[in-house]
């Protein structure tokens, strides 16, 4: 009888040990996916439709991303992206005609895993009828302290050629450089944080050309004509721009299964622009198949030193800008998103599949950019109503893991 009991006890102990071992193993496998430096990214295919509608501009198109591993230490990815633009924005309505154009972007990248380091290389080419851009990227990540900390350094080099549709001889060459530093940290069992610093420089190759490569060759500034109205002249930008940005991101696992994500960023550049933004994101799983996301973002910036909505006279300064993106403004973004996890086996060949729909609403209030489309008989120059812009951004995409 005792021998029988001992056999049953031993069997129970073996089952309990096996269950604990399996649990520990699954936790370790899950934990190994936490920081990117320790493992290769997931093998997946993403197919996205994006749509932007606001301020008289409609931009939409597809994007496809494919990531595949080659052996145990190499991952390659390819991305194809299209912007189909149909624009009658406030700039276009004030001084030009509505237009349509297309921008295509192709990118390839690779990651090589060596012990606890990941080396990344990438190339991106963007082409539109008046702007060509090539970007080369290199980065290295290393994890430390039992994978609690990941440090990364990256550098990218870009060569752009700026053209103009109405003047085939117009060509400006731009060099872009970006130096990045990233630190990711597991702070507690429930809290992850990441710090990013980017220093970017844009440099025109030919400094003797009056019109800088950083100009938008189609945009104009307003100046008072001296007879109560206003006239237009071309914008004139500096030939260089340097900027620094420091961002902090953190995700906290709430006492129930949901997460709260905070992002904050501070930015400044050599043109006198300073900006801050803060974003809060709440992600809530619902039953087994759904993930629901709600977010709110606040952004504000000061204007460039050489920005003015209305200059006092022609050639009032050596640099002139009336680009609303360089003006002082504040904006809010409210976003809603839902992810549906397709039950396993419904779509063959793939381990996991999701369908995702995200909507973001932009609301931008410009502090010193006036709506010059109003009739000059109704409003004196410089007294026009301030401009504001609302835009809706849709992202619908399907993701497949294999």
């Amino acid at each position, binding site marked *: 009888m005792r021998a029988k009991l001992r056999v049953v006890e031993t069997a129970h102990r073996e089952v309990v040990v096996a269950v604990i071992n399996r649990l520990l193993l699954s936790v370790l496998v899950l934990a190994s996916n936490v920081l990117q430096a320790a493992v290769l990214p997931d093998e997946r295919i993403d197919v996205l439709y994006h749509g932007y509608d606001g301020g008289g501009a409609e931009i939409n198109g597809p994007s496809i991303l494919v990531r595949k591993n080659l052996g145990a230490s190499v991952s390659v990815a390819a991305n194809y992206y299209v912007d189909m633009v149909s624009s009658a924005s406030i700039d276009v309505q004030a001084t030009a005609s509505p237009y349509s154009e297309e921008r295509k972007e192709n990118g390839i990248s690779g990651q090589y895993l060596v012990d606890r380091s990941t080396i990344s290389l990438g190339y991106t080419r963007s082409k539109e009828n008046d702007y060509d851009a090539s970007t080369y990227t290199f980065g290295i990540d290393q994890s430390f*302290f039992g994978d609690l900390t990941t440090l990364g350094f990256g550098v990218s080099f870009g060569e752009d050629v700026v053209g103009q549709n109405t003047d085939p001889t117009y060509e400006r060459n731009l060099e872009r450089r970006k130096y990045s530093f990233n630190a990711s940290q597991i702070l507690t069992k429930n809290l992850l944080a990441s710090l990013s610093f*980017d220093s970017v420089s844009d440099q025109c190759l030919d400094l003797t050309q009056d019109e800088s490569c950083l100009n938008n060759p189609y945009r104009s500034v307003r100046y008072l004509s001296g007879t109560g109205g206003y006239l237009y002249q071309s914008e004139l930008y500096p030939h260089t721009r340097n900027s620094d940005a420091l961002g902090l991101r953190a995700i906290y696992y709430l006492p129930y299964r949901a997460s709260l994500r905070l992002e904050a960023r501070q930015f400044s550049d050599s043109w006198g622009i300073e900006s801050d933004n803060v974003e809060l994101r709440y992600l809530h799983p619902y039953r087994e198949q759904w993930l629901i996301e709600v977010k709110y973002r606040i952004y504000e910036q000061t204007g460039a030193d050489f920005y003015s909505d209305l200059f006092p006279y022609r050639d009032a300064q050596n640099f002139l800008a009336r680009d609303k993106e360089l003006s002082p403004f504040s904006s809010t973004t409210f976003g809603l998103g839902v992810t549906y996890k397709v039950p396993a086996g419904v779509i063959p060949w793939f381990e996991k599949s999701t369908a995702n729909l995200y909507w973001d609403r932009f609301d931008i209030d410009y502090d010193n950019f006036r709506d010059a489309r109003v009739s000059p008989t109704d409003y004196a120059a410089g007294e026009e109503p301030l401009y504001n812009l609302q835009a809706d951004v849709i992202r619908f995409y399907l993701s497949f893991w294999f």
Partner: protein
Amino acid sequence: MIFRCLLLLALLFSIAACSPIKPWVKPYERQKIADEIMSFERNPIADSYLHHVFDAREAARGGDGASGGGCGCN
């Protein structure tokens, strides 16, 4: 201002360097951290697109943990 923040962080890290660091969250304690809802890059293609929209609508760039190429998007 940004450089002051970085200097402060460097100072904090240098203080921590005076004592040996042991991983205070053990691998078997990272179940919640490993949950998909705790990922910064859960949706790479969709996040990349939204960064592109922000870059086109705002003067700020970088500091968001994303890499980007050039375009005449403004």
